[in-house]
């Protein structure tokens, strides 16, 4: 019973602001805005590369343009409305969906909590449909889109046996060469002695074992 709305103890101002507007706007107009929010959510990325960044910029620009046009159209129809109504609407709906994704709220609770805010049922049905459709996709996206250290993209290796060198004529020691590329595109080539290789292998398997052990703890149901 004491469950708190997914919007938090206090409904955010951004959402509060949108409530009076939702009560009087047309469904088709609202749908336009909702679809803009969804495309924004899907395009947004923390760790974007140049190409993605440009794409994202383009999408935000499109959203901006459409919002201003929508605003103007609304204005001609209902002149008493504010210029920035569509922006407020966009922000409010963005907050609702963002917080829903953040808390991974179930569709039922999503409806319950929004009904409590007295959102018109037509608009609520639209939001519910959208949320049901994008919930899984966006949760996955957000989970994979996080601040990360660079990750290992490729690992190439080579095992050599050194025959001789300028220092001594007979060596016959194996040596490992590794070339790593991380997700930031940095490439490094380095030599690994057999001793150091054993250390690396031991440590990797130890951490892997720790991860598996942690998985077994019933108290921590790990998201895979």
């Amino acid at each position, binding site marked *: 019973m004491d469950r708190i709305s997914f919007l938090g103890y206090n409904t955010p101002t951004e959402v509060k602001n949108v409530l009076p507007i939702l009560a009087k706007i047309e469904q088709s107009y609202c749908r336009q805005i909702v679809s803009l929010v969804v495309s924004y959510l899907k395009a947004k990325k923390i760790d974007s590369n140049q190409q993605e960044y440009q794409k994202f910029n383009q999408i935000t620009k499109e959203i901006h343009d459409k919002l201003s046009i929508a605003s103007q159209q609304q204005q001609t129809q209902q002149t008493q409305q504010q210029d920035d109504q569509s922006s407020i609407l966009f922000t409010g709906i963005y907050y609702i969906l963002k917080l829903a994704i953040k808390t991974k709220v179930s569709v039922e609770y999503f409806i319950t909590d929004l009904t409590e805010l007295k959102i018109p049922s037509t608009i609520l049905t639209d939001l519910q449909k959208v949320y049901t459709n994008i919930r899984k996709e966006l949760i996955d996206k957000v989970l994979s889109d996080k601040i990360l250290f660079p990750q290992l993209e490729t690992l190439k290796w080579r095992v050599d046996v050194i025959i001789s*060198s300028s220092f001594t004529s007979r060596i016959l020691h194996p040596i490992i060469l590794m070339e790593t590329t991380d997700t930031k595109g940095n490439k490094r080539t380095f030599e690994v*002695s057999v001793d150091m290789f054993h250390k690396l292998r031991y*440590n990797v398997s130890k951490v892997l074992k720790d991860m598996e052990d942690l998985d077994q703890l019933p108290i921590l149901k790990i998201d895979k």
Partner: protein
Amino acid sequence: MSGHNIFETTSSAFNESLALINKVDSSKFTRILSRIVQKIGVREKGERIFSEAEEEQLQGVLGLSTNQLRSIIEATSFILDQIAYYAISSNALASQLDKTILAKDKIQTFQNVWEENAEHILQQLKSKTVSPMVLDDIGWRFHLQMSQSSMSKIKQSSAIFEFNLKSSNSNEKMLLEFNREQLQDLYLKLEDIQEKLDTLS
């Protein structure tokens, strides 16, 4: 290798140096030799084995001129370099040095010093690398991610590995983050390498 004369040299300077060594007091020569042997393989090209002050001191003790001392040091390190390069046993060393004009007591000194240091020096020389970057150390941290700015209530394990890469003039740290799947991939690759290493031994 034993048939081959590794100290064969047409340079009369080398023989002159050996003659100088023969005149040096045995116990003093032992000390000079043990000092030089420490520098085999570790010394950068052009680096001095003795500092200028030390050389002056040695000149006084041994009653030699600057040039005479230099040629003793050079001949001695040449012999040690050759021994180390061919990695010869101390018996082979004696038979090789017998072919030169070096006196018996000095040959004995070389043998003693070499026996004492051979393993250590050869190990060092074998692990000497020409690669610009070498993996020097590994560190890691294993953690469970609980939440992030865009999502609460997460439970995902992840590990950060730090690869310390050493090159001749600097150290570089490479940080890589792994989730379970990625770490498993890495582990399988390392197993591949291990398999190849096993076929070698």
